[in-house]
C-alpha cells in the first residue's frame, strides 16, 4: 500500500489496541507489555514471561492473541508491545525472506545483525517448535513419502492445509527450493490435523510441538534442504522499553525451557484443556522461577 505522508497513512492494521497504556508508574523492575500470536503455544510462552517478570516486580500488561507475526512484529517495533515470544528461524525469514541460514547458531547470528535498531532478541532457548509438512501414515505408505523432496512428484494432485498466512509466506519458497506446486492451499488453521485425518487435505502444516501429531498418527516429512530453519523459542524485545531485569529473567527462562517441556505443557493445554496461564505457573514453580 501507499505509505503516504499523513498520519493516517500506512497500514491500519498497525494501530492495534496495543498502544502503550498511559503513564504506568514504573515499579521496581519497570514496565512491560507482553503480546502473543494467536495460537496457544505463544500464549503459553507469553504467560510464562509475564508471570516470571511479575515475580520480579515488573509491572506487566498482557495482550494475548493479537494475531499473526505480520501484525505483532510491527507492534514491537513501534513500542506498542515490549516483549513477544518469537521463533528465531521464522523471525529471520520474516526479516530477511532470502536467508538460507538453517542451524540455530547461524540463525541467531544472522538475526542479531539483521534486526532493525529498535529491536533485539535475547538468548534462544533449546526448546524448539518447528513448522513441518506432515502427512498421514496412510498417505506416507501409499505414496512412499519420506521427505519433502518425495512430495514434488505428487504435490500437483495434493491439497495443502495450513493457517491462512502460510501461503503467502511459503508458496514461492516451496517452489524454488523443492519444486512443490500444490493443487490447492486450504486455510485450515487449527483444524489442520483433523483435516489430514479426514482426508480433505493430504499435506498439512503442523508444529512439531503439536500433541495432535502423535495423537493422530501423523508423520512429519524430513526437510533435507532445511527450508524450515531452526525454530528455537526466542524473546523479541523492543530495545527502548527493555531493561536488565527483563533481560536476565527471560534469559533464565530460555535456559530452562526444553522442547520436551514445551511438548508436555502443550499436551496439557491441547488435550487436557488446561489454561495456558496455569500451565505456565506450574512450570515456573517446578523450575524455581515463579
Amino acid at each position, binding site marked *: 500500500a501507499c505509505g503516504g505522508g499523513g498520519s493516517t497513512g500506512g497500514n*491500519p492494521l498497525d494501530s492495534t489496541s496495543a498502544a502503550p497504556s498511559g503513564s504506568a508508574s514504573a515499579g521496581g523492575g519497570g514496565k512491560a507489555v507482553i503480546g502473543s500470536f494467536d495460537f496457544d503455544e505463544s500464549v503459553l510462552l507469553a504467560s510464562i514471561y509475564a508471570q516470571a517478570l511479575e515475580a520480579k516486580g515488573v509491572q506487566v500488561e498482557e495482550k494475548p492473541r493479537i494475531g499473526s507475526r505480520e501484525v505483532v512484529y510491527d507492534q514491537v517495533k513501534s513500542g506498542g508491545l515490549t516483549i513477544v515470544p518469537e521463533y528465531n528461524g521464522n523471525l529471520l525469514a520474516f526479516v530477511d525472506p532470502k536467508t538460507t541460514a538453517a542451524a540455530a547458531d547461524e540463525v541467531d547470528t544472522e538475526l542479531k545483525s539483521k534486526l532493525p535498531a529498535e529491536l533485539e532478541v535475547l538468548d534462544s532457548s533449546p526448546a524448539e517448535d518447528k513448522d513441518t509438512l506432515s502427512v498421514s501414515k496412510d498417505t506416507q505408505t501409499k505414496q512412499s513419502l519420506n521427505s519433502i523432496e518425495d512430495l514434488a512428484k505428487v504435490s500437483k494432485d495434493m491439497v495443502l492445509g495450513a493457517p491462512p498466512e502460510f501461503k503467502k509466506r511459503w508458496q514461492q519458497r516451496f517452489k524454488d527450493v523443492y519444486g512443490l506446486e500444490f493443487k490447492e492451499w486450504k486455510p485450515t488453521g*487449527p483444524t489442520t490435523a483433523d483435516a489430514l485425518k479426514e482426508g480433505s487435505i493430504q499435506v498439512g502444516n503442523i508444529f512439531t510441538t503439536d500433541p495432535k501429531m502423535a495423537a493422530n498418527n501423523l508423520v512429519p516429512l524430513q526437510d533435507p534442504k532445511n527450508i524450515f530453519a531452526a525454530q528455537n523459542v526466542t524473546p523479541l524485545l523492543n530495545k527502548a522499553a527493555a531493561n536488565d531485569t527483563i533481560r536476565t529473567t527471560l534469559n533464565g527462562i530460555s535456559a530452562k525451557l526444553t522442547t520436551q517441556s514445551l511438548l508436555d505443557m502443550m499436551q*496439557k*493445554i491441547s488435550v487436557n484443556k488446561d*489454561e495456558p496461564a*496455569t500451565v505456565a505457573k506450574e512450570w515456573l514453580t517446578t523450575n524455581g522461577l515463579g
Partner: protein
Amino acid sequence: MGDGPPSIWEWIGRNWDTGRVDSIRNLLTDHLTMSLVPILFALIVALPLGLASVRWRWLYQPTSGLMNVVYALPSLPVFMLLISVTGLSQTTVIIPLTFYGMAVLIPAVVDGLNSVPDHVRQSAVAMGFTPLRRLLTVELPIAVPVVLAGLRVVAVSSISLVSVGALIGQGGLGGLFTRAYQNPFMPPVIVGIVLIVALALVADGLLVLAQRLLTPWVRARKATTS
C-alpha cells in the same frame, strides 16, 4: 489439575475471574460495553432523525432508503473497512452496530409517531397545546410502545452481533469462540453462546419490563384481549 479435559463447570470455574483480560468476566464487561453503547447512541440519534422525518415528509424516503442499504451491509467487511479509520479498537465495532441500530430505530420512531391517531393529534392542537408540549406530552408517550418494540430488536441483535468483532480481536464474549476454535474445545463455545443468548434475553426482559412500567395503557389492553 487432573488428566483429560475439564468438565464445562470446571472450565467455567477456572476461567471465570482469572484477573486477565480474557477472563469470562472481563469479556462479559467488554461485550456489554460494545453492545449497550451502540444501543444508546442509536436511540439518541434516531429520535431526532425520526422526528425530522415525520415533520418533513420528504426526508423519510431517502433516510429509510439509506437505512435499508445500511442494514443490508454484512458486519464483518464493515468492521474491516472501518479499521482504516478507527483502528483495531472497540470503536470499530461500536460504530457499525450504532448504524444497524439506527436502521431499525429510525423507522420505529417514525412508525411510532405515525401511530398517534390523527384525531388525537388534532384534539391536542384544538385544546391549545403548543407544538413542543404536544410532542413531549402526547405524541412521544403514545409512540413509546412502537419505539420500544424496535429497541428490543436492536438490543437483542446488537448483543449477538458484537461477537463477530472477535474476528478483529474485539468481540467480547465472541473471543471465546475464536479461542475454542484455535484449541478445539466445546465448553467455551457453549458458555459463549449461552451467555450471549442470556444477555440478550435479559436485555429483552428489561425492555419488556420498562414497557410495562411506561405504558400501562398498553398492558391493560393486552390483558383484556387475551
